[in-house]
């Protein structure tokens, strides 16, 4: 099916290039603090790259909103519901958002490539929803304000909402924007469900409120405000008990094996059980001496059967 707008007239056509470049450039520093071999940590660290993705998508949304405004489409006495019009207008921008999120997760994925399990789809879903909310806010600003205001404001607002809450107290503020997972996770933790729910509620509230407000009418504007306040209030209630980090203990417990010492490891660490076991035994040997050498030899040989079993 043909689209109504030409690609060359869309902002997302051009913004997708800096988006890809910036995500690739920032991927290196973002990987420095990652817990290797653990999918939740790899996906959670991707949100350090979304500081670039969301503002750029918000600008693209503002540009499309500006086209809606300059075209005077509000005065066309349209039949289609506003959400269909917005979806049609923002389809390619949403594709750009999906590319950005996929790329951000993709560049982090090698850090967990050999780990068992799959990327945390809940986190990816929250990222997509949050970036969509940023696009919708940009679109709304584009419709309501002149482009000279809408574009910088959508860029600034998006960035400030992502970056600033982490720097202030109370702590619950930082769990509402969907980008509090960058400190997540060591291998005994997973992303906090409360933070996921809180971010989802705020993002959904923003999307619904913008769509309602765009649909026009004083009653709908009041409904939009009420929707946002309700969603925000519910989200605050959910994330209230969280501390500074959006982590929670992982369900289940590590599998323990052996004695003196007993090694308790998570599934992601099982591949290294032999090496850890050997290292643990060596660390229990006394200072260098003929007896200690015998001890080390014994420890090394004791670890061999484990390695052989794995190969």
């Amino acid at each position: 099916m043909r689209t109504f707008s030409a690609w060359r007239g869309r902002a997302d056509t051009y913004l997708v290039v800096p988006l890809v470049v910036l995500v690739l450039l920032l991927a290196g520093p973002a990987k420095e603090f990652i817990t290797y071999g653990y999918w939740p940590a790899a996906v959670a660290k991707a949100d350090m790259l979304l500081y670039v993705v969301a503002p750029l998508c918000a600008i693209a949304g503002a540009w499309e909103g500006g086209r809606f405004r300059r075209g005077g489409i509000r005065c066309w006495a349209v039949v289609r519901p506003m959400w269909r019009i917005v979806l049609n207008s923002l389809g390619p921008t949403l594709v750009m958002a999906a590319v950005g999120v996929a790329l951000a997760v993709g560049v982090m994925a090698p850090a967990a490539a050999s780990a068992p399990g799959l990327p945390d789809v809940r986190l990816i879903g929250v990222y997509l929803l949050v970036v969509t909310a940023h696009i919708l806010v940009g679109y709304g600003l584009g419709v309501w304000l002149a482009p000279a205001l809408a574009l910088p404001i959508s860029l600034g607002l998006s960035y400030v909402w992502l970056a600033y809450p982490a720097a202030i107290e109370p702590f619950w503020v930082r769990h509402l924007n969907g980008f509090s997972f960058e400190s997540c996770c060591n291998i005994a933790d997973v992303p906090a469900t409360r933070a996921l729910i809180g971010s989802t509620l705020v993002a959904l509230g923003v999307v619904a409120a913008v769509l309602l407000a765009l649909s026009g009418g004083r009653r709908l504007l009041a409904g939009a405000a009420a929707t946002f306040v309700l969603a925000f209030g519910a989200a605050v209630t959910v994330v209230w008990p969280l501390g500074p980090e959006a982590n929670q203990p992982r369900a289940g417990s590590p599998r323990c094996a052996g004695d003196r010492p007993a090694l308790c490891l998570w599934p992601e660490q099982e591949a290294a059980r032999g090496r850890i076991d050997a290292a643990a035994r060596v660390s229990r040997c006394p200072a260098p001496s003929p007896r200690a050498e015998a001890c080390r030899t014994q420890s090394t040989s004791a670890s061999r059967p484990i390695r052989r079993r794995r190969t």
Partner: protein
Amino acid sequence: MRSCARHLIQIGVLIVERVCSVSVLLTNCSFSYGKEISVLRGLSVEFGQGATVLLGPNGAGKSTLLALVVGLLMPDAGTVVVNGMGSHVRRERARYRRAVGWLPQQVAAVPGLTVRQQVAYAGWLKGLSKGDAWGRTVDALRRVGLADLADRPSTALSGGQLRRVGIAQTLVHDAQLIVMDEPSAGLDPIQRRGLRSALNAVAGDVDVIVSTHQTEDISEIYQHVVVLNAGTVRYHGSVTGFLGFAESGADVSRRAEDAYTQLIGAED
């Protein structure tokens, strides 16, 4: 007895003819912008089939009346009915809006769209499928004489061409009624001529209501005249009846101006 029955039948035929010949019916319509500015107060008027020109000074309430007919505004009191559909009936709103084409005072070009894309987009916004919208665009542009400019960016068009794009936007979704708010404002004589020929081309097929200050070509295009002043109807009837308010002897253009001045009651 027989003559009585025939009389009743004649009355019935007259009623049916009258109802069928009415395209738009506003009944006791009131509208205010906020609490202070009351524009229309209990206005009742009907627009017959064919082309109607709506005349009146600035601030008379013409644009508000047209916005009520289009369904962009809802009356504070009263009803607006177009071809039997009420603008206030929620379940009929989509059908109503699709039946009415709207050409606002300023037809804006949507940045990034060609003429063809803009007209097709307007059709889609009025509820056509994308395939139908694209399919009907060629014919709509041909009818307003813009087929040659279909692939030009709409932002590159002149004011007169944009108004014709606006008319094509109303044709693409098969509007039964086209409402135009001062379509010739700000156009030079050549552009006005192009617009007039486009208007003539469509006026035979659909009902048209045009608000304007231009009275010189009133007898060429329109069958009915409505004169509005300060939110009330000063005249409603045929062009001939309207021109009858003028002193005889002058040409049609002067007579129309004269009649308008007589009805509005101000001359300076």
